[in-house]
């Protein structure tokens, strides 16, 4: 991933590009807020999807382990936060304590899923992980008896927002003459976490561990013969991927204030996988782009399908919800037909064109 922000080759262009992106990201919530606070919320959810897609990318993109139950880790993170910061158990721990706990517990669940599936690959692994995702959801649905842990299908409500001392992320207030709504505060916080997560991912990919993941993806037998302990390295991929999901889940709980098992259905896993595949498996920037596109496009369609129909035909012919998913599906099919490797294919495919390295 040196073509982006490569300060060595073309420093002026790279720094200008970087500065432009930073400024855009800083100004973005104010521009969106002028269209309605809903758009800032949508952006926050999009950032959470970026976290999820990056986490899943470690498992699917780097290590090549097809995981169809990834949303389970999101659910684990979300419920850990909800249980430790809501009136349900009357616990109100601070978020900076719960997020690491959530990541840790999700990480444990990652190992729990990884351990029995070490010998499985491809279709077989996909089926088992799919089952795992459903098991977690069904547990959340039914763990209201005999002891009420998850409150079943009713879900958990009145979940605490993020708070540091008196600073409450959900409260609207004016700072330095600017009107900060709750979603805007969260946006900036998420942005910081996103930068950290992207840096972690970039560094992991270009490391001894990242190469070992890619070796397993390419040829597991050869990887083992080269001395890679495939068991540990695969478990590490599951654990790392899951902990990112756990962090994202905690944040989801906090911004929503309410969660129920309904938020963690199979379609969500499929959606995150689609983001990874569409963006370009194994390429961090591609995966981010995939996540942003797939979270925004349906929302944009939601607001445009009806007005466009009225302008064209004078009335609404098709139900917006139906046509939205139809267009969305069509876009996915076309994407896969014309760019099967994703919007931004993995960097290794481009390296062929570059000049050989000097020792």
């Amino acid at each position, binding site marked *: 991933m040196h073509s982006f922000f490569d300060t060595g080759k073309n420093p002026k262009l790279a720094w200008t590009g970087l500065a432009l992106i930073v400024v855009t990201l800083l100004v973005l919530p104010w521009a969106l807020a002028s269209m309605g606070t809903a758009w800032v919320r949508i952006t926050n959810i999009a950032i959470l999807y970026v976290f999820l897609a990056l986490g899943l990318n470690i498992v699917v993109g780097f290590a090549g382990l097809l995981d169809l139950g990834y949303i389970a880790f999101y659910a684990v993170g979300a419920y850990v936060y909800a249980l430790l910061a809501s009136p349900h158990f009357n616990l109100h721990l601070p978020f900076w304590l719960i997020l690491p706990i959530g990541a840790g517990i999700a990480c444990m669940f990652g190992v729990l899923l990884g351990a029995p599936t070490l010998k499985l690959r491809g279709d077989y692994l996909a089926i088992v992980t799919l089952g795992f995702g459903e098991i977690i959801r069904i547990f959340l649905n039914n763990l209201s008896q005999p002891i009420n842990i998850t409150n079943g299908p009713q879900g958990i409500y009145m979940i605490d927002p993020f708070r540091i001392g008196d600073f409450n992320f959900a409260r609207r207030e004016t700072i330095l003459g600017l009107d900060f709504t709750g979603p805007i505060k969260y946006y900036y916080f998420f942005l910081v976490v996103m930068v950290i997560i992207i840096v972690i991912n970039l560094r992991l990919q270009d490391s*001894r*561990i990242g*190469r070992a993941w890619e070796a397993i993806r*390419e040829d597991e*037998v050869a990887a*083992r013969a*080269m001395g890679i302990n495939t068991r540990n390295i695969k478990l590490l991929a599951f654990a790392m991927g899951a902990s990112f999901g756990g962090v994202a889940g905690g944040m989801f709980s906090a911004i929503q204030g309410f969660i129920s098992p309904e938020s963690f259905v199979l379609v969500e896993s499929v959606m995150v996988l689609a983001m990874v595949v569409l963006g370009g498996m194994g390429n961090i920037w591609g995966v981010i782009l995939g996540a942003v596109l797939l979270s925004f496009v349906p929302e944009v369609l939601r607001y445009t399908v009806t007005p466009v129909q009225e302008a064209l035909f004078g009335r609404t012919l098709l139900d917006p919800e139906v046509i939205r998913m139809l267009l969305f599906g069509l876009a996915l099919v076309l994407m896969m037909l014309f760019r099967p490797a994703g919007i931004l294919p993995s960097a290794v*495919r481009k390296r062929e064109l570059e000049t050989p*390295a000097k*020792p």
Partner: protein
Amino acid sequence: MSTLALLVAKGITKRFGGVQALSDVGFTINHGEIYGLIGPNGAGKTSLFNVLTGIYLPDGGEFTFDGDPLSNLKPNDVAARGIARTFQNIRLFGNLSALENVMIGRHVRTNAGVWGAISRNAGARAEEAAIHKRAYELIDYVGVAKRANSLAKHLAYGDQRRLEIARALATEPKLLALDEPAAGMNATETASLKRLLEDIRRDGTTILLIEHDMKLVMSICDRVLVLDYGKKIAEGSASAVQNDPKVIAAYLGGEVTLNLKGTT
């Protein structure tokens, strides 16, 4: 070195259902040797490789490597002990660059973990630089340096074979096990492969070589082991094995066996 022997195999036996792939195979490879392993197709050469490198568990027998038993270790532990191999049907990491393939070979001799990767502390950076340097040296050593940044799958066939050797050498093996490295090569490529193998031996690595190219085997191997139907039928210097009637019979067929048995 306390003893001359690097690898001692005793009574290696392997069955697949009713097929006796290896029965009671024993041999000794000395330090610094190029040891040939030949036999007709299906004789059990690759099975022996797979048992040696931990891909299959043997049904009987054991290996002693460098003085210690090599009992039922996993392939990655075998590599850590100092046996590296290549594959008959090349198994490179196709979608990674040639250089990255060799860098992965360094995995087993390096330690940076998740924290090192994320923090990029001084130790991890130094190790990463050393991995890169060593991988480049090795890729240059086998003569594929020009294609260092190409995807492994885009390399020419002969270069892929050489790259696989570089990747195996990156694990710092005491014993390099090569499964038909000259398969599919033309005479020129085979000649340069021969020079490479001689260099590797000169630089201190013992070689176990499965090969069908008899000219190569006979000109380079110090000793040769001949397998047929999973049994050891001959062992000795290249010339001695070449003239062994049992070996000729194994290669030329059953009728000859009957005639020759009468004469020996």
